[in-house]
């Protein structure tokens, strides 16, 4: 079964590599992975989509926790959450098909971000199944290139403080003092 794991890690040299190395050393599969800074610049959030039986997922979560640079690991699979992926897709068009493609883009609430004589580039965001659906519909027009960002997720609702107070970085404490 697919699982979505959200990991808060130190925004440090090598931290990302450590996580990826763990997956390859233990033979676990990574379906998609995305990483970016959070509201605290010393912390990055990694969203990892992986697949495995419950026993494997349990080991993955434990092994991630065991790394020194990981601060918090949450299996988001069964949590109330918002899940998004961004896709840039370049499709070729002929006379007459351009407006059809733009219609489809609108149905998926995407944007046209680039166009030339032969191709059109769309930006579509949504949960992965919506992205898959858009690809399916655009397929007959001739897809030239696709770039997908990988999944990102956040839990719904008001958040309890992500990190216990004492783990907050100095950066945040300093900023807090300024207020």
């Amino acid at each position, binding site marked *: 079964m697919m699982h979505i794991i959200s990991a808060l*890690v*130190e925004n440090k*040299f*090598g931290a990302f*590599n*450590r996580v990826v*190395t*763990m997956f390859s*050393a233990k033979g676990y599969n990574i379906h998609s992975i995305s990483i970016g800074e959070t509201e605290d610049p010393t912390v990055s959030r990694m969203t990892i989509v992986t697949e495995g039986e419950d*026993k494997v997922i*349990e*080991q993955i979560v*434990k*092994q991630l*926790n*065991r*790394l*020194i*640079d*990981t*601060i918090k690991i949450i299996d988001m699979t069964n949590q109330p959450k918002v899940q998004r992926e961004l896709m840039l897709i370049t499709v070729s068009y002929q006379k007459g098909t351009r407006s059809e493609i733009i219609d489809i883009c609108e149905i998926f609430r995407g944007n046209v971000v680039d166009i030339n004589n032969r191709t059109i580039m769309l930006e579509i965001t949504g949960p992965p199944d919506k992205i898959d659906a858009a690809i399916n519909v655009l397929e007959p027009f001739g897809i030239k290139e696709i770039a997908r960002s990988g999944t990102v997720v956040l839990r719904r609702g008001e958040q309890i403080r992500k*990190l216990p107070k004492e*783990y907050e*970085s100095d950066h945040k404490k300093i900023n807090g003092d300024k207020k």
Partner: protein
Amino acid sequence: MNTKKNKMSGADIFFECLKREGVEYIFGYPGGAVLPIYEKLYDIDFLKHILVRHEQGATHMAEGYSRATGKVGVVLVTSGPGATNTVTGITNAYMDSVPIVVFTGQVPTHLIGNDAFQEADICGITRPITKHNFLVRDISELASTIHQAFYIASTGRPGPVVVDLPKNVMNSITEFNYPDKIELRGYKPKVFGHQNQIKKAAMMLQKAKRPLLYVGGGVIMSGGNRELYLLAKENNLPVTMTLQGLGAFPGTDPQSLGMLGMHGTYWANQAVNHCDLLISLGARFDDRVTGKIETFARNAYKIHVDIDPTCIDKNVVVDLPIVGDVKHVMAELASEITRKPDLDEWWEQINKWKSECPLEYDMSDGRLRAQFVIEKLSELTKGEAVVVTDVGQNQMWTAQYYKFNHPRSHITSGGLGTMGFALPASIGVAFAVKDRPVISISGDGGFQMNIQELVTAVYYKLPIKIILLNNSFLGMVRQWQELFHAEKYSFTDLSDGNPDFVKVAEAFGVKAYSTDSPHNVEHLLREILDYNDGPVMVEFKVAKEDMVFPIVPAGASISDMIIRRLDPKEMV
């Protein structure tokens, strides 16, 4: 003026940190990238630098030192080949959870990534084989990084940490600031086990009719041998130990069943097969212990105490996990037990297995056997020596026939199975242990890996007793070839290539003896035990076709154990 006084170079800060960590010995080898450190080292007197002959040797020495003392072992090597030579030793320490800190030199930061002379990405290389590693890119991070390295290596489930030190960082200058407290938000090892889980464990133990303690190296590492002794003795519990657990409970005690697993005793493995409650203490259900997972202790409830949550349910799914320091958990568990289980029947059964199938070997043809040597050694030293073994038959025979009475006395390469471990590791031990004999046991194959460290033993006049069990074969591999690979003795016969080991040892300056007669064993063992003027070696030429029994074939059930070599007549 005052602020100027506080300014120190990276190399000065390095030594100031080691001083505060209480480092006594560094095992190292100089080179270009660590020259600034070696320049300072020249005038340092609060610690001793031990010059090795190969960086792999340094890592094994640090491991031996650490395992004998419980302190962190320290290695210092140069960049590039110096660093890559430590990889086997680091992996060995990682697999056996030994706290060592390896300082590697690195090319100056502006040359990193340039394929500079003697550059190697040692942080990249060691990422999967260290508990953690650091590249110090700025001198401002140096003191806190070293402090963290020692903290991470020695706490929780211990392990090796690599600190990569670029040359320019060692030369730059800054104010020295040693952090008093370490705050790592991603690393909070758990010490105390969950109260309710421990209560449940106590209840299960009181109800059990056939309980068994399965003890691993974690008990020794946590310093919990006393707690184990009290828990086992007060409740009359049988104790079986893993290879790394040997010594956690006295081997001469009647409650010790010896080692379990692939080459474990018949009665220990039978006890695992028939127990109704298996309590794993600081062990990790390794495949060499469990054999076929599905049939391992299948009649038993399983309790697993371990400080590392990833160990729990990794190989064997357990009924009651307790995450915490096994020393604390054992003490609390013992205090929760109010009613001692009645185990008379269980002990009767175990003792029956013991008499049915004791450990035995046949010397009726008059040729020398390694088992006989180890048994005599155990008798003569009364189980008081620190014995360091290599990998293979010599290791398994020592585990079977030497009765270890103390923790930190059996030092061997378990998880990784590194040939060439014994000699350098025993050197590390010999720096730490002065009041008991230090014995290094190798086969003729492993002895030739890291044989260069004989120089180190001679130079520092270390009274190591080297026992070379020479069967002119890679014995364990030969054994598997005989049992499982159609008797094709493919490249395991060393008899034509082996050197004259006595001459080799003498060339290094080691006093050496050799014999192939059982009659000389006792007298030669006494001779080397009494010899105190540096290292001494005795080569025992033993029967080459001998095998370690019992053996559970890899992946088979414990009940499929092979007890002895079948007579050709029986095989029909």
